[in-house]
């Protein structure tokens, strides 16, 4: 019921030597935006559908660890802010599913792939939110990392994705500031609160660093995405930007980065981190994180428990349409 019909779905599978391909690349090089009904090589379409769907899935899976604390937020102000934040993430998921649908894949199909485990989403959401501090930490680090990734996407060559990103980035940077402010409040509070913040940073720091994906040498999709101007910076470049922005923020409020090898390089002006545990990254991405099973199970339950509601909405719409056409005929 969410599929949008488009007129360019039966393109030839092999675009090699297609003169349209050269024109397409010329448009990309000229920084023009590609729109859904424009010609595009199949590889470009597939890459985008995969990336946008993963992004959409990350938004809605991300609602779960944060939603976990809505009913337990420590003040009414924080409760309302968290609820509004998680609602924003749902909105992001919605725009992104719509953007992916313009490329010919239905939301139902994407949802099915998510609940049966075929689709991927950001590894970060497979970690648990154990304390209230984790809510601030997600805002500060996870939304912060998301912004680093997404700001360049506002100039992505695919129009609907770029436009969705502009709107989303504004909200993400609000989330990031709000999260940092929450952590600041903890750091200025009782020793117990400060300890909550430090413990949370200890658990979320490395997973946040891993959000940028494998190192440039090991990233399968990077080169092509750069040529197509879907991606503008490499994983490592974005990761470094995030580290340089975040380390001083942590120090400013008296938090210690859980990395004994962290040091500032006076010559380059960059913070250098220790070794990333890529085994952990691979394990979490492959399904072995602490919460992978719970996250997918929660989405699956929502999908299954809601089936009768979606069926009812569809049945009602059909009945109404039938009644209307009867009235017209009479």
């Amino acid at each position, binding site marked *: 019921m969410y599929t949008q019909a488009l007129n360019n779905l039966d393109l030839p599978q092999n675009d090699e030597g297609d003169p349209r391909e050269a024109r397409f690349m010329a448009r990309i090089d000229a920084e023009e935006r590609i729109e859904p009904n424009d010609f595009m090589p199949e590889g470009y379409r597939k890459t985008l559908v995969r990336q946008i769907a993963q992004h959409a899935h990350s938004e*809605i899976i991300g609602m779960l660890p944060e939603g976990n604390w*809505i009913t*337990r937020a420590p003040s*009414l102000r924080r*409760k309302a802010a968290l*609820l509004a934040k998680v609602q924003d993430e749902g909105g992001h998921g919605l725009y992104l599913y719509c953007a992916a649908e313009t490329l010919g894949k239905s939301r139902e199909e994407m949802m099915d792939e998510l609940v049966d485990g075929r689709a991927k989403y950001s590894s970060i959401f497979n970690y648990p939110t154990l304390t209230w501090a984790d809510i601030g930490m997600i805002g500060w680090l996870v939304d912060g990392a998301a912004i680093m990734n997404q700001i360049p996407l506002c100039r992505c060559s695919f129009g609907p994705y770029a436009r969705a990103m502009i709107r989303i980035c504004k909200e993400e940077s609000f989330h990031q500031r709000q999260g940092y402010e929450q952590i600041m409040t903890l750091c200025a509070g009782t020793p*117990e609160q400060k300890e909550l913040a430090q413990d949370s940073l200890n658990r979320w720091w490395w997973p946040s660093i891993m959000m940028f994906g494998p190192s440039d040498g090991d990233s399968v999709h990077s080169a092509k995405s750069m040529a197509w101007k879907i991606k503008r910076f490499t994983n490592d470049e974005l990761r470094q930007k995030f580290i340089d922005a975040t380390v001083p923020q942590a120090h400013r409020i008296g938090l210690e980065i859980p990395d004994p090898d962290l040091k500032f390089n006076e010559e380059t002006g960059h913070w250098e981190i220790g070794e990333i545990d890529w085994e952990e990254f691979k394990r979490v991405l492959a399904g072995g994180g602490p919460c992978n099973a719970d996250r997918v199970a929660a989405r699956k339950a929502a999908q299954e428990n809601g089936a*009768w509601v979606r069926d009812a909405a569809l*049945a*009602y719409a059909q009945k109404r349409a039938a009644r209307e056409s009867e009235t017209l005929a009479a």
Partner: protein
Amino acid sequence: MTTLTLTAPSPHLAFLLRLADDNLILGHRLSEWTGHAPMLEEDIALANIALDHIGAARSLYDRAAELHGEGLTEDDYAYRRDARGYLNCLLVERPNGDFAHTIVRQLLYSAFALPYWAVLTASTDATIAAIAAKSEKEARYHVRHSGDWFLRLGDGTDESRTRTEAALAALWPYTGELFEVDATLEPLIAEGVAADPRSVHAVWQQTIDQALAATGLTVPEVPFMQTGGRTGYHTEHLGFILADLQFMQRAYPGATW
């Protein structure tokens, strides 16, 4: 952080807390859906409605705190009272159940809240009148949202109709309490601070009758109405809501978040 017990609150304070508690508890219940709704659009819509209710509760607690003096804040009311001190009607604390229960609960409550806020815009308490003006607009959307869904579910599939009927039967006994007037309300109605809930019963009934007529469902036969929330005599569910809601304040007393 000790438990806040209000011994013999003034009628004005009690009235504010009743209305605030209705909104907080209903908002809390709706917020439980976030991330688990039948479709993404409903995650967003239910969160919206929850935010409206929580927002109204906060304004009402603020006004209560102002009246109360003693330097209390909105959070003292929400986080420090035990179940016996909560004055919400029983309807709003009923569990979310399936989506039909949530929709029916919302329609039954919002169909009352909409005309009730409308009357309260004339409250002699200017703060209540201002909150009512804002909330009336929001309640209009709540009635439309739950009313539209009531129609889809009541006139959708056999399954959705059966579920809607079951939800109506389960929740109807909690509607009588919405219109009760007691010794707390009487003087306030006379002063014009509060509105008489009985005065909006006919409008409420009409909204519900219209929704029922559109689906062919009927008012369930209910031999008994339930009551007690306005004096702190709740269903067993409220205790668990508060265990969740108040966890942080109880685990880390006195901290600022």
